[in-house]
């Protein structure tokens, strides 16, 4: 079982990561967007264990009444974890923009919402003197299933090396409420959207293919040879290749002898 994790060990590593990384930069508090979905719930639970509930702020940022159930789940989880919450309705800001520049393009509205939340999260992080905890998982990062400078934006990401199915196992270990564990994953870009419906593959299938391509570094042909569907493997490979820009800082045109992003090489944790 290559995707099997030892959840208590993973919890130990990720809690230590959150704690140490914040303390190195003299922060005591973490802040994150709470959607009521699996990833942000797992991240909130890890942060509460790492920092203590009172040092975690969950930002609940619904658009209109579309995701009332999720708001309820997010609030219930926050109560259970003993973390603070703050609800900001993003409808007025998003609607103000699209009233002026109307569109029926769901990618535009979805991205705008994700970036609105990012903007609020960064603003509130100053007020709270908190660092932003990212909630993107490895599956999303690899296939580019996230909004650049939106939900992908964060100060540190504790979950980015766990596939969605592994996040779910961790969620079970952290005893998240069944309503969250059972929920169909959705980016919440529009009503009725599900990740699996949009990607066209189940997460268990997707993660198994990603594992072979990425962790085992097998070629698409080899992965197909293992018995995975040709169409699925080719699609996953294309998703990975076409989303490289989301995983990188933008390229800087090199002119001088020493250039940021090329040969000005320092660690993020430099002098910490």
């Amino acid at each position: 079982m290559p995707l099997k994790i030892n959840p208590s060990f993973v919890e130990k590593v990720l809690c230590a990561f959150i704690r140490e990384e914040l303390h190195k930069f003299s922060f005591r508090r973490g802040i994150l967007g709470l959607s009521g979905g699996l990833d942000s719930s797992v991240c909130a639970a890890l942060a509460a264990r790492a920092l203590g509930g009172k040092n975690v702020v969950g930002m609940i940022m619904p658009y209109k009444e579309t995701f009332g159930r999720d708001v309820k789940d997010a609030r219930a989880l926050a109560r259970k974890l003993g973390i603070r919450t703050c609800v900001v309705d993003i409808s007025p800001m998003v609607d103000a923009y699209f009233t002026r520049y109307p569109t029926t393009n769901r990618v535009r509205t979805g991205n705008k919402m994700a970036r609105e939340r990012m903007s609020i999260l960064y603003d509130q992080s100053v007020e709270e003197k908190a660092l932003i905890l990212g909630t993107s998982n490895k599956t999303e990062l690899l296939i580019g299933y996230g909004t650049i400078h939106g939900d992908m934006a964060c100060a540190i990401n504790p979950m980015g090396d766990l596939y969605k199915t592994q996040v779910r196992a961790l969620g079970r270990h952290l005893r998240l409420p069944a309503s969250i564990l059972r929920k169909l994953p959705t980016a919440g870009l529009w009503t009725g959207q599900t990740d699996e419906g949009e990607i066209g593959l189940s997460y268990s299938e997707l993660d198994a293919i990603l594992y072979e391509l990425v962790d085992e570094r097998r070629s698409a042909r080899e992965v197909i040879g293992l018995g995975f569907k040709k169409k699925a493997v080719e699609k996953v490979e294309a998703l990975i290749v076409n989303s490289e820009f989301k995983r990188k800082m933008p390229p800087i045109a090199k002119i001088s002898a020493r250039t940021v992003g090329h040969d000005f090489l320092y660690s993020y944790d430099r002098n910490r």
Partner: protein
Amino acid sequence: MKVALAQFSPHLGVIGKNPEIHFQTIVRARRDKARLVVFPELSLSGYTLMDLVPEAALDPARDPALKKLAAASRAIDIALGFVEEGGRGLFYNSAAYLSAGRIIHIHRKALLPTGGMFEEGKFFAPGKSFRTFASLFGKTGLMVCRDFLNSGSSYALFSGGADVIIVISAAPGRGFAEGAAFASSRMWELMAEAVSFFSTAFVVYCNRVGFEDGKAFAGGSFIFGPSGSRLVKAREMEEELVLADLRLEDIRAVRKNRTFLRENRPEVVLRSLKGIIDAPED
């Protein structure tokens, strides 16, 4: 003779906190009656230095912190890691053994991992040899992290008659395992078990903990005895000072029956290696 492994998390860069941590740990190790305290790789500077390497480099002949540590070695032997200012614009990822008030041996890491998550070859010059030296523990050899994952380096120290092989390490944990550890932790013990057994020597391995840029240094430091059995094991991922008693008489006892050292013929290996080194491209 007691050995202490100082599994800790060095600060990264040039901020002067690390020598203080060494001094505090030395006090604790002395209190525990250790005769040697081993620190991890690059214990005076942190690991992911990259372009900080020249700034973090210390001249072993002149550096005040190393001089103070050497003075501390009058009371307890010390093995530590630092960036060595090699002159001529060369910098080494080095291990030093300090005893009786001075640095008695420096080993420059010879095998610099450069690939995947590792970039040491971009920033460090490689060392050229593995040599044993005399210490309180008999013939002693030093290695730095990746040096140990090559059978040739252990063989060189074995042929040099090593009684004790000290490995200082900054090994990031990676890969999932069944137990409460990274998969990579097994790799180090696998090598240590084999090297201690077949070299009939002690293997003392001190790894660091803490995070740098998301990499978790896994800890799990350990000591193996000359019969290939593990004497002590530190926890994964946590700061700890662990101690073990090295009974040096075990070396002689084991070698009475296991005659690997007596049978060793380095000249045969050397001849074979020469043939390989001198061969044209294949």
